[in-house]
C-alpha cells in the first residue's frame, strides 16, 4: 500500500500545471530545440527502462529458488551477443544524430543583444551596454535578479562568477550554463512572447544556494525601450523635509558602502560610490538604483509584490504583461497615489530588520573571521524601526 501511494504521488507530481520551471514547457526556440531532442529520447528511454524492469522482475519471480534443479549452464551465444550489442548501438546512433545537431544549433552565437551575467553568493547581476534588440543603451545599466530582455529577440548572455561556481538556468528559455570564476561562457536566450520565466542556480554554491533564484522578463520592443529609458533616467532626490529625504541620508550612512544608487551625491556634492569590494567576499552588492521596478529581492527569493498583484502579473496576457510589469510595485496604484497598492512592505521591512533570519548567510561577526571580515550576504545592520521607515520611504522612490 505504501509503495503504491508513493508511486502514485510520483506519478501525479508529473501532472502539475503551475510548474514554471518545467523543462517540458519550452517558451523559446532554444528551449524548444532541447525539447525536440529530450522528449522523444524520454519516451524511448522510458520504454527501454520498462522493458528492462519487466524482464528483471519476471526473472526474479519466475526463477526464484524453490528447490528445483540447477538449470543447464551455458557460455557464449554469438547471435544473442551480437544482437544485444547491435540494438543498443543502433539506438545510441539514433540518439547521437539529433543530439549533436542540437548541440551545434544551441552553440549559435548570433544575437541582437549581449548582456553580462555575473553570479555570486547568492544572487545574479546583469549589466547591459551597447544596443539591445535595436534599443540604444547609452550608459551601462546594472541590475539584479531579473534579466529584462526584448521578446522574440536572440540575446547572448556572457556568464561568469565572482566567487564560486554557479549555474544559470531558466528552463523555459534554454539549458544550463555554469558560471565559473575566471572564465566567461556564453548562453543564448530568446523568449517567444512577453512574460516572466523563472529559474534557479543549479550548481550547489553554499549555504543559501536554494535561495539563489532568477527570472527572465521578456518585454515587447516598445516596453523594453521604456524600461531602458527609465533605467537611464537621472536620479531625482527626494523632496526636502520628507521621510524619504531623511531616508536618503540613512541610505548613505548605512547602505551605500555596498549598494550603489546611481546619481546619489553626498552632502558635499561628491558622488556616492559603493565599495562592496571592502565588505563583501564577492566584491559586489545589488545596484538599487531602480529597486522598485523589480518584483523580488534577495536573490529573487522574496516577492516585493503582494500575492494578489503577483498573481495578476504572472497570469497577465502577453499583451498586457509589459504595461503591468513596468509599473513595478506601483501597479494598480494610479498616477496620483502616494502609497503603492501592490507593495509587500512587510517583506522588505523584515529583510531590513534581520536579513539572516530570512536567508541564511555568512554575515554575522563570528562567521567572518576566516574572510578578514568580509561577508557572504547582507549583514544585520541593527537598524531601528525609524530607520527602516526612512529607508522604505527612500527606496519606494527608486522606481
Amino acid at each position: 500500500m505504501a509503495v503504491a501511494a508513493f508511486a502514485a504521488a510520483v506519478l501525479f507530481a508529473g501532472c502539475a500545471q503551475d510548474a514554471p520551471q518545467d523543462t517540458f514547457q519550452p517558451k523559446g526556440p532554444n528551449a524548444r530545440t532541447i525539447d525536440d531532442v529530450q522528449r522523444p529520447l524520454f519516451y524511448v528511454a522510458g520504454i527501454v527502462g520498462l522493458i528492462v524492469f519487466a524482464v528483471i522482475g519476471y526473472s526474479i519471480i519466475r526463477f526464484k529458488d524453490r528447490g528445483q534443479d540447477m538449470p543447464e549452464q551455458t557460455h557464449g551465444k554469438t547471435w544473442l551477443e551480437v544482437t544485444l550489442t547491435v540494438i543498443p548501438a543502433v539506438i545510441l546512433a539514433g540518439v547521437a544524430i539529433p543530439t549533436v545537431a542540437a548541440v551545434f544549433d544551441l552553440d549559435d552565437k548570433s544575437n541582437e543583444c549581449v548582456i553580462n551575467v555575473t553570479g555570486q553568493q547568492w544572487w545574479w547581476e546583469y549589466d547591459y551596454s551597447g544596443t539591445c534588440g535595436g534599443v540604444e543603451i547609452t550608459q551601462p545599466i546594472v541590475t539584479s535578479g531579473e534579466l529584462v530582455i526584448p521578446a522574440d529577440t536572440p540575446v547572448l548572455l556572457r556568464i561568469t562568477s565572482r566567487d564560486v561556481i554557479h549555474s544559470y538556468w531558466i528552463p523555459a528559455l534554454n539549458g544550463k550554463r555554469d558560471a565559473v570564476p575566471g572564465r566567461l561562457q556564453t548562453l543564448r536566450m530568446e523568449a517567444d512572447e512577453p512574460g516572466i520565466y523563472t529559474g534557479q542556480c543549479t550548481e550547489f554554491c553554499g549555504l543559501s544556494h536554494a535561495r539563489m533564484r532568477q527570472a527572465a522578463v521578456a518585454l515587447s520592443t516598445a516596453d523594453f525601450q521604456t524600461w531602458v529609458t527609465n533605467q537611464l533616467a537621472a536620479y531625482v532626490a527626494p523632496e526636502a523635509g520628507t521621510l524619504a529625504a531623511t531616508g536618503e541620508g540613512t541610505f548613505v550612512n548605512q547602505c551605500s558602502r555596498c549598494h550603489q544608487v546611481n546619481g546619489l551625491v553626498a552632502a558635499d556634492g561628491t558622488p556616492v560610490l559603493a565599495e562592496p569590494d571592502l565588505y563583501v567576499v564577492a566584491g559586489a552588492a545589488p545596484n538599487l538604483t531602480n529597486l522598485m521596478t523589480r518584483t523580488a529581492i534577495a536573490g529573487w527569493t522574496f516577492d516585493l509584490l503582494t500575492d494578489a498583484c503577483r498573481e495578476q502579473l504572472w497570469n497577465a496576457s502577453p499583451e498586457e504583461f509589459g504595461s503591468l510589469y513596468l509599473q513595478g510595485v506601483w501597479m494598480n496604484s494610479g498616477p496620483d497615489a502616494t502609497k503603492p497598492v501592490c507593495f509587500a512592505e512587510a517583506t522588505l521591512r523584515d529583510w531590513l530588520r534581520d536579513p539572516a533570519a530570512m536567508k541564511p548567510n555568512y554575515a554575522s561577526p563570528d562567521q567572518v573571521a576566516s574572510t578578514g571580515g568580509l561577508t557572504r550576504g547582507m549583514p544585520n545592520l541593527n537598524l531601528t524601526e525609524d530607520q527602516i521607515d526612512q529607508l522604505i520611504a527612500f527606496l519606494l522612490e527608486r522606481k
Partner: protein
Amino acid sequence: MFTTGSKMFLGATTLSVVAAVVFAASQGGAVGLMSTVGLVTAVIIFAFLAGINFFTRDGNTPSMQQGVEQTSSAAQAPVGRSMWPLGAAVGIGGLIVGAVSKPVVFKVSVVVLLAAIVEWMVQGWSERASADHRYNANVRSRMLNALEFPILATIGAGAVVYAFSRVLLTANPDAGRWIFVVIGALVVTGGFLLAGGRTTPKGTVAAICTISAVALMGVGVASAISGQRTIHPHPVIDDPSQKALCLEGGEGEVDEHASQDVSLKSSVVANIYLQEDGDLVALINGYSGIEYHELTVPRSARLGVIFHNDSGEAQRLTGRFGTFPDQPEAVSCTTAVHPGKSAYLGFEIPKTNAASSTPLEFIVPGVDGATIQIVVP
C-alpha cells in the same frame, strides 16, 4: 531461515545503523550531516541487498535441498591461514603513526585498514558458505573480484600515467613531444603485433608488459627526483616595482621560456589584436566579427584577455586598471610577445571606473594610439 548471504548483509545493515547513530550523536556540522546521510544510505542499501538475498535465497545456493544443512555447516574449520589480519594490523599501526606524524600516512592507513577488514570479512564468510572449498573460493571471487580488479587496474594504470607525466614534466617541451609520439607508436605497434600473432605465449606478453611498466615507473621516479622543468604558462608582470617596465616603450625583455601560444580562447572576455598598422582592437566574446576600442566588464570579477601580436616586432600588452583612493595605480602587463604569437593577461577591477583618478585602459607601450578603453559600470 536466513541464508548465508542475507546474514552477511543483515550484519552490515546493523553495523551501519550503529555507525549512523554513533556518528550522528558525536559529530556536528556539515561533515557530520553528510557522513550520517552517507551511513543512512548504506543502511538502506544493505537492507535492500539483505532482502534481495533472502528472497532469492542467495541466487544460486540450493539451500532447500535435502541434507544440505549438514554438509554446509557453518561450523566447518577455515580453509587456511589468512593474510588479512596482518593487513589490518599494518593498517592500525599506520593509523597510530599517522596520527602523530603526517596526515597522508593516516589517510593511507585508513584505506589499508578498510580494505583489510572488507577482504577479511568476505573471506571469512565465503569459507563457510558451503562444504565445497572450490565453490567457496568461487563465491569469494565473484564477490570481490568485481571490486579488486578495477581498483588494482586503476592503481596500476594510475602509477603508469603518473610516472609518464613526471617524465614529460621533466623533459623539455620539444623532447616531450617526441617521447609521447615514440612511446605511443610503440604501444600501438606492439599491441597490433601481439593481437595479430596467434602464437605469442601469454607469459611473454605479461613479461613484456611488466618490464615496460617497471621501466617506465623507474624512469618516472628518476624524473620526479630530478624535478620538473620551469613552466611559464602565462607570463605576467604585476610586481609594482616593475610597473615602469609595463609602461615604457620598446621591446624590453622577451620570455623565451614561455610558450606564447594560448589555447584558452573560448573563455576570455576578449581577444585583443595589435595590428600591423599599430591599431589595437578587441574582438569581444559575443560580438561576432566587430572590432571594438571599448570593453565593458563587470567589477570584482576575475577575467582575462588574449593579446595577439600581429605587428612586426615584439610588443607587450599593458593593462592600466585604475588608481583608487589610498592605493597606487594598478598596472600589469604581459612580457614582450614575439610577432605572430600570443599571451594571456588576467585582471580584476574592484571598483567602478568612476572611482578611479586615472583612465582604465589597455595600451601597447610605445605605440601611439594603441588604446582600448575599459568601462566598469
